């Protein structure tokens, strides 16, 4: 983003006298772009998920509306937008209205440090990984707010479950990321990806070290739990808590929760790819002789291709497994994932020292 800003100033010298204004406008434009991107990704994901689910359950899935049913998600969004905005009696109105945006904020902000390609990143922060871990848990505030403000016992249980779950699973997920950071020697997401350069994926983090290989699974499981995906979707367990924290929501506010959930699926997969599976490092090395722009496009494609596979994995898990119970969830976190993550961390440390 800084490069873009400097480039703008250089090419249009008249902007140099209004630097603050230029920066402000640039931020807004980029922010809107990110929002649009998030919405399109989340929308496409709903279509993808419904198709995958349909295939697993021997159904058809959406087929009616445009492009083999792809436009379905636009229709759904429009329907939700046009719905009556219901705020039940006795709810805490301010919190009730704020909650969906907080839920989305956690997902939306992480796009900032997501390296789509070598040059395509919004902000290459030098604490990118830390930033990602920090921001992604803002979602829990939104969910807790929604649960509390809804004036509904089922929502409240959902909110409390979510708080307990996300706070607990922060620890193994952070611990599982640390070996990668140690290996890359940097907290910047771009540097982590650069550290994985090499032929045909043998230098991806996951293959560099047996401990990181285990860490990947710890990270993946805890990210599933952090994003309330089956088998850890307790905050919205529909057969236990009706719909959990979003029971009382409808219309656009519900759509925001939905958006946050599906953005999170993408973010979870994208970060798993970035940190462990080579990020935008081009597939099959770069033995091919192709000109500069095509290389960038190939990198972008590699990133999205790997991310799609991870997304597919997440969706397949969702439509296959049943849900765990809350005590089993906590047991898994504290009895297994945290010790394993610690073990990995020390393992990597010793590996690097020796």
């Amino acid at each position, binding site marked *: 983003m800084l490069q873009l800003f400097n480039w703008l100033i250089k090419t249009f010298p008249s902007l140099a006298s209004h630097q603050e204004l230029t920066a402000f406008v640039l931020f807004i434009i980029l922010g809107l772009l990110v929002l649009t991107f998030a919405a399109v990704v989340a929308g496409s994901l709903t279509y993808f998920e419904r198709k995958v*689910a349909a295939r*697993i*359950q*021997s*159904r058809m899935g959406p087929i009616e509306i445009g492009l083999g049913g792809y436009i379905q998600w636009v229709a759904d969004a429009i329907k939700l937008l046009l719905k009556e905005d219901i705020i039940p009696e006795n709810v805490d109105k301010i919190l009730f209205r704020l909650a969906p945006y907080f839920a989305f904020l956690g997902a939306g902000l992480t796009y900032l440090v997501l390296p789509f390609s070598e040059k395509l990143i919004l902000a290459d922060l030098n604490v990118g990984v830390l930033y990602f871990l920090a921001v992604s848990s803002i979602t829990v505030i939104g969910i807790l707010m929604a649960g509390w403000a809804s004036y509904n*016992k*089922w929502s409240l*249980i959902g909110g*409390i479950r979510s708080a307990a779950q996300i706070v607990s699973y922060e620890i193994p997920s952070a611990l599982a990321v640390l070996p990668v950071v140690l290996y890359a020697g940097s907290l910047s997401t771009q540097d982590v990806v650069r550290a994985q350069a090499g032929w045909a994926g043998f230098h991806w983090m996951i293959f560099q070290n047996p401990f990181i290989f285990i860490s990947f699974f710890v990270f993946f499981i805890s990210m599933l739990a952090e994003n309330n995906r*089956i*088998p850890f*979707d*307790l905050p919205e*367990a*529909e*057969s*236990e*808590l*009706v719909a959990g924290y979003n029971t009382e929501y409808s219309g656009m506010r519900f759509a925001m929760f939905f958006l946050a959930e599906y953005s999170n699926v993408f973010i979870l997969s994208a970060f798993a790819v970035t940190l462990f599976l080579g990020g935008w490092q081009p597939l099959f090395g770069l033995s091919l002789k192709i000109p500069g722009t095509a290389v960038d496009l190939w990198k972008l494609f590699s990133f999205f291709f790997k991310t799609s596979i991870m997304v597919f994995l997440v969706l397949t898990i969702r*439509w*296959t*497994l*049943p*849900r*765990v*119970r*809350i*005590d*089993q969830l906590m047991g898994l976190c504290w009895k297994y994932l945290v010790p394993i993550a610690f073990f990995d961390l020390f393992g990597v440390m010793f590996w690097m020292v020796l």
Partner: protein
Amino acid sequence: MSLTRSEEWYLNMGPHHPSTHGVLRFVVKSDGEVIDEVKPDIGFLHRGIEKIAERLEYNQIIPYYDRVDYLAAFNASWSYVMAVEKLLGIEVPPRAEYIRVILGELNRIISHLISVGSFALDMGAVTPFTWAIREREVVNDIFEMVTGSRLTYNFPRIGGVYQDVPEGFREKVLQFCEYFPPKLKEFNDLITYQKIFIHRLANVAVITPEQAIAFGLTGPNLRGSGIKYDLRKNRPYSVYSEFEFDIPVGTGEAGTLGDAYDRYMVRIREMEESCKIIKQAIEKMPDGPVRAKVPRKLKPPVGDVYAATEAPRGELGVHLISDGSSRPYRMKIRTGSFAAMSIVNEVSHGLMIADLVALIGSLDVIAPEIDR
């Protein structure tokens, strides 16, 4: 230092809760997630079938029995016609008995399919349910072919069944018997032996054999507690004594005897046994009439009679009292779900909310059978 104090609250579960299988209501007194007490509140689906029957002729009552248990409509109406036949002393032709057995067992299979499927749904797995529905459709087609309807068949008649089975019935049923066991294995691979699923159900909501007897549980719920009691074997009615089949009972394979997993497994195994019975019945099916000669106006002698069949949800018994007129003086229906509901409070103390869902699902209660 102040002591942390937790307050108990009341949760209102139902009647519009996704996992209460129809319109049941539970008033749950819980401390956070841990349940202290559950009060089932029934009666949302009470239609007064027993009272309505007192104003109807004997053969007009049959369709009402399809609505007693809509998932196993055939088994329910079978109980009723058996009671009336006993009251009148009518001999049912053997072919009719065989048709009843085949349809009854097919009905048991699809009822159990819905049961295990929706149980998996309660546990958070959606796919097993759609797979179960897919298999159920095949049987629904057979029922449509024989009876003309897919859910409430209204097929048994006093003294037999409504009509003979159509051509191609034998092939279709045999085809299903070939088709079903591999599909059931597929289903088991997907969910039954799934580790998370087993961990969710093992040692949860344990009903001891003593409790099961004390609360009058019947059917798979009783057998899940390890008691080998099945009306088809212990008090053989119809032509069941001619078939060879096992009665699956709970063994506590995952945890404790009588836990939710045992009850679930009994249903899975019963489907296999039903398949066996159907195969034998279709091979042995004799020719002949399908309905005994029964007078148009039924006037049973004064007296009372109790007849029961082993329905998918336990003993479905009918107690008929006749005063010699063409209408029953009193009709009492005994259903398995009603007895199963009474045990919910007994075993739910100390469970979590997620376990309560498992308990209700494993008891396989459905609202119309509880309320009639």
